[in-house]
C-alpha cells in the first residue's frame, strides 16, 4: 500500500557517503600539518578520499532524492 513512495536504497547510500566524505575530508584538512604517524601520510589520503566520497555521495543523493520520480 505504501510501495509507490518507498525511498530507493541508493538515496540512503548517497547521504551516508556524503556525510562521511565531508567529515573525512575536513579531518584531513585539520590534520594537514600535524606530525605524520602513518605510512604514506604525506599523500594526505583523507583529503582526496574524503573528497571522492563527497562527490559520489552528492551525486547519489541528488539522483535518488525523494520526490524526483524514480
Amino acid at each position, binding site marked *: 500500500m505504501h510501495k509507490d513512495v518507498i525511498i530507493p536504497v541508493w538515496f540512503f547510500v548517497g547521504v551516508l557517503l556524503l556525510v562521511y566524505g565531508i567529515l573525512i575530508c575536513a579531518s584531513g584538512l585539520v590534520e594537514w600539518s600535524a606530525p605524520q604517524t602513518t*605510512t604514506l601520510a604525506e599523500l594526505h589520503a583523507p583529503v582526496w578520499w574524503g573528497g571522492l566520497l563527497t562527490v559520489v555521495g552528492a551525486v547519489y543523493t541528488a539522483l535518488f532524492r525523494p520526490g524526483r520520480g524514480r
Partner: protein
Amino acid sequence: MTNEGMITLKAVDLAIIAIYFLAVLSIGFYLKRFAQTGKDFFMAGREMTAWVAGLSFVSANLGSLELLGWAGSSYQYGILAAHWYWIGAIPAMVFLAIVMMPFYYISKTHSVPGYLTLRYDRAAGGLSAVTFAIMTILMSGVNMYAMAVVMKVVLGWNIHFSIWVSSLTVGIYVASGGLYSAIFNEVLQFFLIWFGALLVPIFGLMETGGWKGMVARIQQNFPGQDFTHLWSGLGKFQDNPMGMHWTGIVFGLGAIVSMGYWTTDFLVVQRVLAAKDIRSAKMAPLIGAFFKMAVPLIVILPGLLGLAVLPMHLFPESGLQAGQHSYNEVLPLMLARYFGPGLLGLGVTALVAGFMAGMAGNVSAFATVWTYDIYRPFLRKTATDHHYVSMGRWCTMIGLVISIGTAYLAMGFASIMDYVQALFSFFIAPLFATVVLGMLWKRVTAAGGFWGLLAGTVSSVGMFLLVKFNPAMLAVIALSPHAKALAEDMYRALWSCLIGVAVTVAVSLMTKPKTESELKGLVYGSTVLPKEGDLPLTKRPLFWAVVVLAIFVILQWIFW
C-alpha cells in the same frame, strides 16, 4: 568500555561509527511501515531490482568473519585463499543464475526448505528447515563472537559491550523492517566495505612498488615459500602452505562446497528470491559474481601485502604469546599502518557494518525459515498473515538472544574457522545433492530426498567425529596424512554429498515417484522455462554468464 587496543580512535572516528548506528536504526524504523504483510516482511515485497538483489546477495556473504578470516588466511596460505572467491564461488553463482533460479522463482517458494516441501514432502522440507535453523543460529553466534574478539584486540572494547550493543541494534532494525531492512543495510555495507578497505591495497602496492615489488619482498621475508601462485603448487599436498591437492579444490570446493553454499544456503538465496521478476532473479547472482571476483582485491591482497610490508611475523591464534599478533589481525594491522583519523573510523565502521549485515542476514533467514517452514506447517497451520508477521518479528529477537548464547558458547572453542567450515560440510554439502537432484531429475522421490539428506548429514558428522577421535583416519578421508583442516573439510563435503546422492538414487529407485502434474513448475522437464530470445544480447542473463566465466578463466591463467 575500553582498555588498551591496537588502534586509538579519535573523535571524528567515533562520530563516523555513531552515525552508522544512527543511520541503520533510522532506516529500520522508516522501513517498518512497508513491512506489514508476510510477503513484505519475509520477501521484501518481491520488488527488488537486479542490482539491489545482486549487491545484497554478495554482501550477505561479505561479513566481518569473512573479511578478517580470509585476509588472515591469505597471510597464512598466500593467494591460495583466493580459490574461495573464484572457483569457490563463480561457477556456482553462474549455475544458480542460469540453471536453478528459474525453478526457485517459478515455484514461488519463500525459502529453500519451502522448495523441498513442494518438490518432496513435509519431512524433507522440515529436516532441511531444522538443520538450517540450527546452522544459522550457530553461525550468527560465531560471527558475533569473532567480531567482539577483534573489537577487543583492535580497539580495546569490552567483549560483552560489543556483543550486546551490535546485537540489539541488528535486532531492532530487522524486527522493524524485516528483509527490507536486511537488504537495505547490506547494500549500505557493500559501499562502506569498498570505500573503507580499498585504500589498503592501493597504499600497499604504492609502498611495495607494484605487484612485482610485493612478490620480491615476500620472497625476501619468507625465503623458499610460494605465496603467489594459484594452481602451480597444488600438484602435491606438501608443496603448498595449505596442505591441499588440486582435486580437493576442484571437486571438494568447486563442485560441492561452493555449489552447496551459493545455491542452497537460504541466507544468500533469500536475497535473490526478493527480486521483482525472473530476469532480475537470474541477473542478480551474475551481478554478484562480478563483484565477488573483485573482492580478493580488498581481502586477499591486503593479506599478501601484510607478508611483504609488516615488520613482524604473525602467528596462529592457538599458540599466541604476549606481544604477538595472530593471522586474523592482518587487516586491522594494515588499517593501522596506513589510515589516520577519519579513514580509520571508516575502516572500523566497514568492519562493524560487515559484522552487523552478516548477523542481520542470518536472523532474517532464520525468521523466515522458522515461521514459514517450521512454525506454520508443524505448529500452527491456520493463522492470519498478521500473526505470522508478528511471529517473524518476535523470532528475530529470540533468534538473536539464542545467537548471543551461542556466541558465549563459541568462546570455549579453540578454532573458530574449523568450527565454521565443519558446519558447512555437515549441512550444506548434503543439501546441495538433495536440491539439485530434485530439480533436475523427475524420478527422485520424496523418500529418496529425505533419506539422502539425512544420510549425507549423518555421514558428514560421522566423518568429522572419526577424525577427531582417531587422527589416523585423516589419511583415509582426506586422502593424505599431510592434509590440513581446510583440505579435510573439502573432502568430507565431497564424500557426504556423494553419499547423499547414492542414497537418494537408491531409495528413489525403490519407491514411487510423484506424478507429472505434481512436479509442474518444480523440476526440469515438467516446467515451462521463459524464453529470452526476444531480448537484446546485453539484456540476456546467458550472455553475462559467458562474460563472467571468461573473466574467471582469465584470472586463473594470470595467477596460475
